[in-house]
């Protein structure tokens, strides 16, 4: 209990509260500007959090992302342009509601159900993470090996639309993680005699490149002229929300639960949670014909899902060091920089820091109600700021931020190359999230695989001997075999059925 009291003390001090407030405003702003994503907000925050103690650094990321995922709904409703990819699933629906004269309903539902979904994800995180950590304390290299493999598998088969391209993305990430001296034999790999490369590719400039610079490049290439759907001032966005909660409790619960679960799967984050929830909402709705015409039900469910995914994503990140989405992939980099190495021992040695993260999670959701309401009020002014003015400033921030991590221009070079790589990957249909997962988990995979191999002494069945490792292993192999099994079953049924 002492740790909880210390955690409250860590969070409720003026410096941390100021950081939370400022990052909330920052998150709301970035999320509301189309083209600036929540992941980009996190990547841009890192150079600043680099100079903070661990608790405010993590608090800044948690708060900014929660706010950005909600405020992505604002331009969806007003411009039909999702502010973040997480709002894309129901952008059309929200815009139609606005066109039907109900912007308050679209924005209010976005806000209130984001808060409720976020609280759900936070509560699951608070209860699930410590109990999982207790189990994880008994994990050996076999369990970790299979966990990493399962993470890769989820990122390829569940999160992506095209498993083949997802696989390529992952392999590119693993190849990037090979660079440097940090391998079982301690041999220089792909360093080309360059001293900077012996330490490996630094994660933060890579992330800034892949998530921020690539967005700036994408913005430069495309031309969008958004049209504001409404000019009149907004009424009360909270009116009718209680009735919505009473009308759609099942949708709220289903969206939040699915969002948390999808968030916890490595590689899949808020955007995929929202798409899946929207589809499920329509599938189980009593009025599916109303979807797409300006019906609030889908916004309720997927709005809750995308915010609950954030809490879910932190579960594997804190307990195993395996990121649940791209945001926590960056956050894990920050945790390592701060000496808060993620893993079950963090819960034993530094419980106050973990509890502080939990408190910030809940605090951020509660703060979202008043701040989100203010953001909606200010939305029309904010959305008038031309993104053309912001993008060059973001680029300069990326350059200086990448430099600041190690104070070398090498970081800027990594950032630029990563930006161009991510730009072309997205253009050619290769998802970026598996690459990041590969870079973050490559070392862990190699390390755990080698210790497992030495323990197994040539007997591969040892990889399946321990109960949890065996279950994870079989599950991973089943997911890989699933397309083949389905193909085979389809052939059999075609042969057996009428011609």
């Amino acid at each position, binding site marked *: 209990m002492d740790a909880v009291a210390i955690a409250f003390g860590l969070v409720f001090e003026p410096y941390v509260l100021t950081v939370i407030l400022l990052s909330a405003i920052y998150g709301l702003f970035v999320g509301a500007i189309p083209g600036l994503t929540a992941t980009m907000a996190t990547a841009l925050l890192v*150079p*600043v959090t*680099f*100079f903070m103690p661990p608790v405010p650094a993590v608090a800044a990321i948690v708060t900014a992302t929660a706010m950005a995922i909600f405020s992505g709904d604002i331009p969806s409703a007003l411009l039909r342009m999702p502010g973040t990819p997480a709002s894309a699933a129901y952008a059309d629906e929200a815009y139609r509601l606005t066109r039907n004269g109900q912007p308050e309903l679209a924005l209010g539902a976005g806000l209130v159900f984001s808060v409720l979904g976020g609280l759900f994800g936070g509560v699951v995180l608070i209860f699930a993470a410590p109990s999982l950590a207790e189990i994880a304390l008994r994990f050996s290299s076999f369990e970790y090996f299979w966990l990493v493999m399962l993470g890769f598998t989820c990122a390829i088969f569940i999160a992506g639309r095209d498993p*083949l*391209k997802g*696989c*390529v993305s992952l*392999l*590119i990430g*693993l*190849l990037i*993680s*090979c660079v440097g001296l940090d*391998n*079982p*034999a*301690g*041999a220089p*790999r*792909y360093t080309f005699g360059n001293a900077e490369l012996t330490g490996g590719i630094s994660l933060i400039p890579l992330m800034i490149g892949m998530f921020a*610079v690539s967005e*700036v*490049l994408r*913005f*430069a*290439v*495309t*031309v969008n002229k958004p049209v504001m759907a409404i000019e009149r001032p907004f009424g009360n966005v909270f009116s009718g929300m209680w009735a919505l909660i009473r009308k759609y409790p099942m949708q709220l619960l289903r969206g939040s639960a699915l969002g948390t679960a999808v968030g916890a799967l490595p590689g899949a984050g808020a955007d995929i949670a929202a798409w899946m929830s929207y589809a499920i909402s329509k599938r189980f709705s009593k009025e599916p014909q109303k979807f797409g015409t300006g019906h609030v039900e889908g916004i309720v469910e997927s709005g809750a899902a995308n915010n609950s995914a954030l809490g879910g994503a932190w579960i594997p990140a804190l307990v195993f060091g395996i990121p649940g989405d791209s945001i926590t992939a960056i956050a894990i980099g920050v945790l390592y920089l701060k000496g808060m190495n993620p893993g079950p021992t963090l819960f034993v040695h530094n419980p106050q820091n973990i509890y502080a993260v939990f408190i910030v999670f809940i605090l951020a959701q509660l703060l979202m109600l008043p701040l989100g309401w203010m953001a909606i009020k200010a939305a029309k002014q904010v959305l008038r700021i*031309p993104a*053309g*003015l912001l*993008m*060059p*400033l973001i*680029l*300069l*921030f990326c*350059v*200086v931020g990448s*430099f*600041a991590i190690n*104070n070398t*221009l090498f970081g*800027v*070079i990594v*950032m*630029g190359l990563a*930006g*161009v790589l991510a*730009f072309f990957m997205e253009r*050619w*249909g290769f998802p970026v999230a598996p690459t990041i997962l590969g870079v973050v988990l*490559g070392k862990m*995979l*190699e390390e755990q*695989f*080698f210790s497992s*191999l*030495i323990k197994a002494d040539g007997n591969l069945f040892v990889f399946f001997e321990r109960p949890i490792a065996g279950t994870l292993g079989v599950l991973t192999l089943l997911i890989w075999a699933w397309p083949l099994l389905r193909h085979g079953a389809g052939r059999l049924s075609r042969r057996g059925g009428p011609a």
Partner: protein
Amino acid sequence: MKFTDRWLGLALALLAGAVLWSARDFPAVPGQKFGAGFLPTLVGAGLLLCGVALMVRGWRARGAPSLGGLDAPREEHFGSAAVIVGVIVGYTLLADRLGFLIVAPLGLLATFKALRVGWGPALLWAACGTVLVHFAFYKLLRVPLPWGVLRPFY
């Protein structure tokens, strides 16, 4: 789209070849069969399989209508993106020599113009942005941004 897939598949297969070839020379852990070459070999083999699969898929789908056709009539400005890449390259080459306070506003100005911002706001924000970022990172966060030729005036 499918045309690109075919060529991307080929490029990936070539990359895989290079990775596999390079992995042969990495030393093994003493007393073990595997070593530093293990992960690169695995990655190389995976990339080779994926590259070939992409080529085959692209080849099979030749003649099929392109999926990109839905939003095809879209205006695109590749020149602007090239300017942005040029600004990053220029920064890495010139920042140490000329200094942040010279390279940053020039880079900002070039980027503003590439994004079709008018001269007035572009000049104003290039100056303000530089001062703001310099203040935040150099003064507040104590990042040693390079002074370059301005060192004598510092």
